């Protein structure tokens, strides 16, 4: 009987069966990977995990109050230290993303070497460390408020149009920048309280970033659209990065640059922000301030033959925005959009003015090509 099922491996019958087996195997493997592409991957930032990982119901640990840094609870929204209690768990520690139960909390202040996330790192501006206030936004709890005139956002204009309503009429002298709310960046800026401004965002289904709610806005920046890199750009690559939204027509409020413009009004040319006269417009003459939210195709003199034509491959050092960002763009072209974050980090950086590079070392005609300003201004990097 045994001999009956033994097959000669050199027989045509064996060869046919071998080919069928290989075909079916390849078909199965292909189907598996095709399935991975079709089925949406759960990469949304909706917090998953145990309630207790982030919240303390009564701010009571062994009968004593919750503490964060030098502060004693209770903290808002029953958190264990407020925004920074979760997103700044160990400012001097070397971990840029901290597991919290099933969730991962990006750290906005940490000391991980080469670990800065897309927005940078408040470490560079924190009073506890460098205390260099030119290197980041002076957010309450991290840095003290700057002295005048930097106690208000440079370029601030009151009562501008913002998602959900109108921005503050004025920026009071004693009002320090906060993470969220009217005096911050995240959440609903029509709501003053930072925590109310963020209400529910971490628990919202954000699998679709449509900017309609705080929870479904890019990085909880109300109204902003984009694609969120799942590791907050830690170890990002030129084809897997944040996807920033831009709008060279300045007809929407859903761009990352418009968000910056809500406070730094005079630095954005949007009609809604009224900054056109201050920045200049592309078609009518010279810029008086560096433009933002414009595409290379609209530069004075045209894109063809311009120095911007030589910015070809996406640069993580000087990223660009897109009208419909995917985060997988590898190429830069005429329709790529210059944005505030092309030059700046949002939180903090090792460089003055929260720049992505050392402005003082940018030397025309002698700089390192494709770095810093010269990433876009390619001709100015040419060595004459």
């Amino acid at each position, binding site marked *: 009987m045994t001999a009956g099922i033994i097959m000669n491996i050199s027989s045509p019958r064996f060869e046919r069966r071998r080919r069928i087996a290989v075909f079916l195997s390849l078909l199965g493997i292909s189907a598996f990977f095709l399935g991975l592409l079709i089925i949406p991957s759960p990469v949304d930032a909706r917090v998953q995990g*145990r309630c207790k990982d982030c919240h303390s119901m009564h701010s009571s640990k062994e*009968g004593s109050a919750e503490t964060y840094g030098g502060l004693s609870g209770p903290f808002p929204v*029953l958190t264990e230290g407020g925004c920074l209690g979760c997103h700044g768990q160990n400012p001097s520690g070397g971990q840029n993303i901290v597991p919290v139960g099933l969730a991962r909390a990006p750290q906005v202040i940490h000391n991980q070497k080469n670990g800065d996330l897309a927005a940078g790192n408040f470490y560079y501006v924190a009073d506890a460390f460098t205390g260099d206030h030119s290197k980041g936004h002076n957010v309450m709890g991290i840095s003290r408020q700057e002295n005048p005139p930097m106690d208000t956002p440079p370029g601030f204009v009151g009562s501008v149009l913002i998602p959900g309503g109108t921005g503050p009429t004025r920026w009071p002298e004693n009002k320090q920048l906060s993470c969220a709310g009217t005096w911050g960046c995240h959440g609903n800026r029509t709501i003053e309280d930072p925590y109310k401004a963020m*209400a529910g965002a971490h628990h919202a289904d954000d699998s679709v970033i449509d900017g309609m709610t705080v929870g479904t806005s890019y990085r909880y920046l109300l109204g902003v659209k984009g694609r969120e890199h799942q590791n907050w750009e830690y170890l990002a690559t030129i084809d897997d990065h944040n996807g920033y939204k831009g709008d060279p027509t300045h007809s929407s409020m859903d761009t990352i640059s418009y968000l910056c413009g809500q406070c730094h009004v005079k630095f954005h040319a949007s009609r809604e922000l009224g900054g056109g006269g201050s920045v200049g417009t592309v078609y009518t003459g010279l810029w008086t301030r560096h433009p933002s939210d414009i595409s290379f195709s609209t530069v004075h003199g045209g894109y063809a033959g311009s120095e911007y034509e030589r910015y070809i491959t996406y640069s993580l050092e000087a990223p660009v925005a897109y009208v419909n960002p995917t985060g997988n763009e590898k190429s830069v072209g005429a329709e790529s959009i210059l944005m505030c974050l092309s030059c700046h980090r949002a939180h903090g950086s090792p460089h003055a003015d929260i720049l992505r590079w050392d402005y003082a070392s940018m030397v025309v005609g002698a700089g390192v090509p494709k770095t810093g300003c010269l990433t876009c201004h390619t001709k100015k990097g040419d060595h004459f």
Partner: protein
Amino acid sequence: MKRWGAKLAIVCLSVLALTALDSQKSSAKVEGDCEVCHAIYPGMMDEPAPRKDPRYALKNAVCVNCHSFAGNETVKILGGVRVPVVFNTDLPVSPLAGGNFYHVSRVFGDRKGHNVEGISAADQGFGGAPPGYERTKDPSMVGFNSTKPLACSGSNGCHGNRDIEDPFRAVLGTHHAEDLPLDGSTTAKSFRYLRITEKEKGILGLEDADWGRNESSVKHNEYTSSMNALCANCHGDFHGPARTGIVSPWFRHPTDVVLPKTGEYAAYNPASPPSPERPGIRIYNPDAPVGRAEVPGAVSDAVKPGEDIVLCLSCHRAHGSPYAASLRWDYDSIFTGGNGKGGCLICHTGKGGR
């Protein structure tokens, strides 16, 4: 001894006579054979001095002794009287509304119940003081004495008159007093003998005839806001606006606030949706009970977001539970953003599954 026996007989006969006259009244007033309760344990009573009343020898243990059971039944019969069991030696099969001290009695952990004297030693972590205790928020004239153990009643306990330090005296006579109507005017007429103090009205509510045993949406205690006030006697920091907040964002989990009728709370108890004929109504879940603004006329399975009240007891058991912090559920297993349900997610419906 003869004189004491005669007195006891007279009292018992009187009780039995009253019982016969008023056998239809739904009352928790204890009736029946005296010795069943008062002489069941050897050495329970001191030999009375001449012309003196008998006295308990083990006053501090009498509550626990009577309301305990060596087994897993949570309602026991003593002399024909049903006695709620708060402390079982075995895992209780159907714990009562207050939970069961079984969970805090041995090596299960201090955090699974109130560490009442006679059941468990003082909580080492808290050093004897109730977490969040604020003397100014404790209406007791005596106040909580953290050098003394937590008791069932009195100033260091929950039941009885908290103006009285002696746990025994704080409930003295209550089991034999008229306890209807349940209007909070006396200890006996307070919900579960929870009197607070002499000057304050006792706790109001509707007492389930089975003390919450096998409770369901249609059979359960009915609580009111006054229950929260009692908890705040000792856990004052966890109650009231000073440390909790007035409105969102809360700094501590709010209690004694109306369950909102907006947002995720409008879908309270999503596992049991009401019939379409009951708009605006949700179905009561004894795993996360709510209180009523007023004592209702009858037990109801309806929960009205926008009217009903979040309680301390919405999350906690008063005596003990299998879970840390004497919670009604395992906080460690409550997950947000996944497919979780129950526990916190009974109210926080938006934080559960997609």
